[in-house]
């Protein structure tokens, strides 16, 4: 009976895990072997550093990341963590990165709005003062905040990588309005914009963001070839770190917790067997 119950439970979980059947083709999702996959996965510091550079030099022009502070870059697991500086606010590299960026402030003497170099305690400044300005500068589409984007999209970093490398020439027969770009990994249903064979609707959707990356657009300090694929990979990894900065602590803590619980459970099992050994039941 117990076995039957487990089988049924497994069946239920299999149901829950299966993707929804869609009438139109599903967007392309490429899976990447990330360094942070699996229970022992760790962030690749060099990759996060490259990813930060891509974000700073490309994405930050339009996308805010309002939940991150410069100090986060120097925290354990972060791209510029240095074990010498337990307090990330003292990390000189993080300080210099922050100093390069101007943030808004109020002059405490005059009350005037001013700009000053950022400190590690400052949040990443947003490129637009408010949502309306962001929309007005981007053809009516609000560039989403990237702080937790890697958790806010199904597929996470795989999706971000797929989207950034998913731009293709518009297929003949697909109507794409001005200011929109065809992307095989964007979610959507192109059936209504498709004039070709009804059974061959192209996968993907349209997106208002023009292809942001191009070969050589960012120069990597570690000499990695700066291809679109590499940039997309690195920035997706960086965004995953940004969304889940405590991942390494979590998995480390988890290992200890699992081992402890396993020992605890085994001990209890033997204790249980011993106590019950003489009871007919």
């Amino acid at each position, binding site marked *: 009976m117990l076995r039957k119950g487990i089988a049924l439970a497994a069946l239920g979980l299999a149901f829950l895990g299966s993707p929804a059947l869609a009438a139109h083709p599903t967007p392309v999702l490429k899976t990447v072997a990330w360094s942070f996959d699996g229970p022992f996965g760790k962030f690749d510091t060099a990759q996060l550093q490259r990813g930060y550079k891509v974000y700073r030099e490309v994405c930050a022009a339009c996308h805010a990341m309002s939940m991150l502070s410069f100090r986060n870059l120097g925290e354990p697991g972060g791209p510029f963590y240095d074990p010498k500086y337990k307090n990330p606010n003292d990390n000189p590299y993080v300080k210099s990165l922050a100093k390069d960026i101007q943030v808004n402030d109020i002059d405490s003497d005059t009350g005037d709005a001013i700009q000053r170099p950022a400190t590690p*305690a400052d949040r990443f400044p947003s490129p637009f003062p408010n949502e309306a300005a962001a929309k007005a500068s981007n053809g009516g589409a609000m560039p989403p905040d990237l702080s937790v984007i890697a958790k806010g999209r199904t597929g996470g970093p795989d999706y971000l990588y797929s989207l950034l490398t998913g731009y293709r020439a518009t297929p003949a027969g697909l109507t794409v309005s001005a200011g929109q770009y065809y992307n095989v990994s964007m979610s959507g249903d192109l059936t209504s914009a498709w004039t070709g064979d009804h059974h061959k609707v192209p996968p993907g959707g349209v997106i208002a963001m023009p292809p942001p990356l191009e070969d050589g657009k960012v120069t990597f300090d570690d000499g990695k070839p700066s291809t679109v694929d590499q940039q997309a990979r690195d920035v997706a990894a960086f965004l995953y770190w940004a969304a889940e900065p405590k991942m390494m602590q979590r998995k480390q803590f988890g290992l200890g917790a699992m081992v402890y619980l396993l020992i*605890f459970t085994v001990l*209890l099992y033997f*204790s249980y067997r011993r106590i019950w*050994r003489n009871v007919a039941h």
Partner: protein
Amino acid sequence: MADTVVGATPDPHAPGADPSRRDFIHIAAGAAAAGAALAVVWPLVDQMNPAGDTLALASIEFDLTKVEPGQQVVVKWRGKPLFVRNRTPEQIAAAVKDDNAALRDPQTDEERHKPGKAEWLVLVGTCTHLGCVPTVGGGDYGGWFCPCHGSHYDTSGRIRKGPAPKNLEVPTYAFLSDTKIKVG
């Protein structure tokens, strides 16, 4: 612990196994449960300590030209008042004169300001008794007077009379230029 209760049950086949080994399993299981409970308690306690953003509270810079001689300006720093006082020569002299008086928390005036900047006194503005904010210029010594429980501080911020145990705290600060300090 198991023995007593097992004994109270219909248990015709009393275990013949080595009792010390049997107890070991139960004690180990109980200890593991207690250990797990303790391990869970620490995160629950630690979460009430200052969070990352609180610890990262920025240091502040302050322009001294705003403070007239004999005046004090109060600014907020890390949620607490910070006294920046521009002392007159008479006030400095009064403080230095008492360096060898019977002090509860002995410190010379020289130790309480930056070298060569005797006119500038920077203090955390909370009474060392129970945290009230002392008023400037009051009390028997012309420094500060705490209205809550009557602590008197002199013009160097040293405790002279009343219940407070310590001098007003001097925070970590540095002169960036002759007219600008950075606190924290």
